[in-house]
């Protein structure tokens, strides 16, 4: 069956998953659902200790079993040691058929590939995967399906019980012996642990893993002891220098600077740019450069931002320090400046649900004026692909892309016309992750295209005459005139992964790649 972005969703996948094809952004608006509740193991005895001596002991006490679902957060990014630590122990116990429900998986977790191959892990749910894990999935090594969800979509899935977490492992930079957890104050700080909040609320067992035990009570706690069953102290939960993926130094790449300047011009010449506007940007070189050039114009014109959301980086925190934004709402810290900036009283911790969950009563993303995003591919329908490479291999993550793109009043996607010799602006993206209805403006190094659904934005930019305006088809044609029209990637029939829309419907499927 074809969905609302024209993607064919096989009937067997619909019946296997019980899901519906994507029907448009607001299909589930106001449709009631029953929130899932965990099984709770009450603690009343004042002699009860939550401390366990090892991951193994925690697994045994939490009734680890074949076929269970375990969850993790990705706040330590490429410096994460928790996933491998726990999965190794599960592997050593000989458990099989595990569903790995991480908020995201990266190259730090390539040690789990043999566990995919030997059937320890048979399904994966994550925002996305990279490196060898992506290759393993795209080559059909995972027995079950990989489900890629946005950050907001994951909260929806756990809240609605679609993802039933048996044991949530929460890496905590600090914890007390009773399980009050925080992202700061330890030796492996990540600032916030927002993505685990839903796991703490909904998992049957919650295990905190820390390398810094602090005196009780560890307050203010980002995750409360009331949700934590066990606390395990280990030597190291992460590698601090690998936690910060954000560019510490602003880019000097003129191509990125050019796109950043176009992006800034788009922002300042569209109607939402006025005192009190709201803004979110990513961690790419052009996005960061754009925040820096936007800062300059805000200072010149005396325009102040009401709130910024993140995925935060140094340039956003600099805005706060300069008094150019009232408050920052933080779901993850991309660099060490953002990690330490949480001490600023106007820099607030928010959960992933508050950030982007489409199935609560209104998330922060809904209040965004601007979001600046990147994309691997954008097609002439403005659909974006941020998960599957142009070679068909899963290589990225949805992150908050679909959430913020739908939420923001003006969604700007920065994408160079060519990624190497591959046209990034194309007729049809390899895989749709964010629907074109959410995307308003595409900024490339060859010009800027406005979604025809937004004549108001087009008119504003035409009037300002501030950027080279092109249609998306013109950009595609320039790309193809340079590279030639690419042949579509060849896939096998077998579906290995699902790109889930925010509301749980199916945006697209990912098939096994044909061997070269």
């Amino acid at each position, binding site marked *: 069956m074809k969905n609302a972005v024209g993607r064919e969703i096989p009937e067997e996948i619909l019946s296997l998953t019980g899901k519906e094809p994507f029907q448009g952004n607001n299909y589930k608006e106001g449709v009631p659902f029953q929130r899932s509740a965990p099984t709770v193991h009450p603690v009343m005895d004042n002699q009860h200790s939550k401390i366990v001596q090892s991951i193994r002991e925690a697994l045994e006490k939490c009734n680890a079993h074949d076929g269970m679902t375990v969850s993790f957060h990705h706040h330590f990014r490429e410096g994460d040691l928790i996933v491998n630590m726990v999965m190794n122990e599960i592997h050593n116990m000989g458990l099989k058929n595990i569903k790995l429900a991480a908020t995201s998986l990266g190259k730090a977790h390539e040690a789990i590939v043999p566990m995919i191959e030997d059937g320890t892990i048979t399904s994966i749910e994550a925002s996305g995967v990279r490196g060898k894990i992506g290759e393993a999935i795209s080559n059909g090594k995972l027995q079950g399906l990989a489900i890629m969800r946005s950050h907001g979509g994951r909260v929806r899935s756990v809240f609605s019980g679609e993802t039933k977490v048996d044991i949530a492992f929460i890496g905590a930079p600090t914890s007390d012996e009773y399980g009050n957890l925080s992202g700061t104050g330890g030796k492996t700080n990540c600032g916030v642990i927002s993505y685990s909040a839903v796991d703490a609320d909904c998992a049957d067992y919650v295990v905190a893993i820390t390398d810094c035990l602090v005196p009780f009570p560890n307050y203010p706690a980002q995750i409360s002891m009331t949700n934590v069953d066990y606390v395990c102290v280990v030597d190291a939960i992460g590698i601090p220098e690998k936690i910060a993926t954000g560019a510490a130094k602003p880019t*000097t790449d*003129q*191509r990125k*600077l*050019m796109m950043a300047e176009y992006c800034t011009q788009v922002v300042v010449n569209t109607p939402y740019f006025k005192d009190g506007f709201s803004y979110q940007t990513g961690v790419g070189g052009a996005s960061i450069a754009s925040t820096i050039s936007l800062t300059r114009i805000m200072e010149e014109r005396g325009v102040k931002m009401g709130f910024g959301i993140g995925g935060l980086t140094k340039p956003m925190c600099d805005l706060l320090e300069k008094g150019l934004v009232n408050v920052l709402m933080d779901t993850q810290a991309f660099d060490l400046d953002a990690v330490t900036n949480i001490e600023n009283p106007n820099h607030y911790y928010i959960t992933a649900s508050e950030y982007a969950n489409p199935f609560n009563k209104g998330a922060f993303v809904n209040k965004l004026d601007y979001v600046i995003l990147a994309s691997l591919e954008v097609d002439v329908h403005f659909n974006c692909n941020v998960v599957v490479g142009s070679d068909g291999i899963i290589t990225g993550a949805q992150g908050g892309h679909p959430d913020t793109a739908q939420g923001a009043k003006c969604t700007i996607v920065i994408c160079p016309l*060519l990624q190497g010799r591959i046209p990034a602006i194309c007729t049809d993206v390899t895989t749709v992750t964010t629907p074109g209805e959410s995307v308003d403006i595409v900024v490339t*190094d*060859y010009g800027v295209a406005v979604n025809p659904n937004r004549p108001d934005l087009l008119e504003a930019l035409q009037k300002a005459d501030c950027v080279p305006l092109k249609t998306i088809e013109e950009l595609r044609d320039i790309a193809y*005139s*340079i590279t030639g029209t690419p042949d579509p990637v060849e896939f096998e029939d077998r579906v290995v992964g699902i790109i889930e829309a925010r509301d749980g419907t199916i945006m697209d499927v990912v098939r096994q790649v044909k061997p070269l």
Partner: protein
Amino acid sequence: MNPNLKRLRRSMMFLNCQKPGLIKDPYIYAPDSIMLDLEDAVAEREKDAARYSLYHALQEIDYRGVERVVRINGLDTDLWEEDIRCAVAGGCDAIRIPKTETAEDVRRVENAVIAAEKEFGREDGSTLIMAALESAKGVMNAFEVCSASERLFGIALSGGDYTKDLQTTISGTGVELMGARQHMIIAARAAGVQCFDTVYTNLKDMDGFRRDVETIHTMGFDGKSIINPRQIPIVHEIFTPTEKDIIFAEKVVREIDTKKAQGIGVFTVDGKMIDIAFYDGAKRTLALAKASGVYKGDL
């Protein structure tokens, strides 16, 4: 005469032919010219590969009006003649001669270019020449170099080698380059060709770069060799006439035309004394403004 002899050349950007990623679409940064380098930037053992990339780039890529100059290897090597065959076969717009010291150097290149144009069926005279002066001798001979060929559109200072020859170093103040710059611009103007300044290699010092460009702009240079697209906007900003300059130049041209018909030789425009001596300068400002895309008027 090749109509491109006098084209706008404010920014001439070096690009290493050994790196296809650099030469695939430099036009997005809108330099006036690119200088596709087969010489110093290319490793000795990669000269063949660089020529191969160069030829195919010239043949396949639409550079969207950006002038394509090829810097060949020095005349003291056994590479330069094949460089010229390859560049002319590809259809380049001009050849840049490194380490030029005499008019004879220019004529040797000119002869090779003529032969290559014939060999590859390219229009006679379609390939221009520019000469880089990189030694004291070259600078001393600037006027004879400028006058050596009808195809030669200009000369360029190459500061690194020149200062070595002078037994000094680049100081950042421009003092060591002062004599060469002054001599070259005078020689170029005397011969009626263009004159270009050397590269500024400290990419971290954009303020220093700006001061350098302002200096050579004041001295009368037509443009500057650059090594990074980041430098382009600054050069263009400084070399592009301001709105005030354009309005004034328009008034000067119109007033001189009107007053000439009335038999008046000297008069004032905006309080400044103007006579016929200002005419060419005002016309040049308007031509530069038009070529830079900031003047749409009819003068």
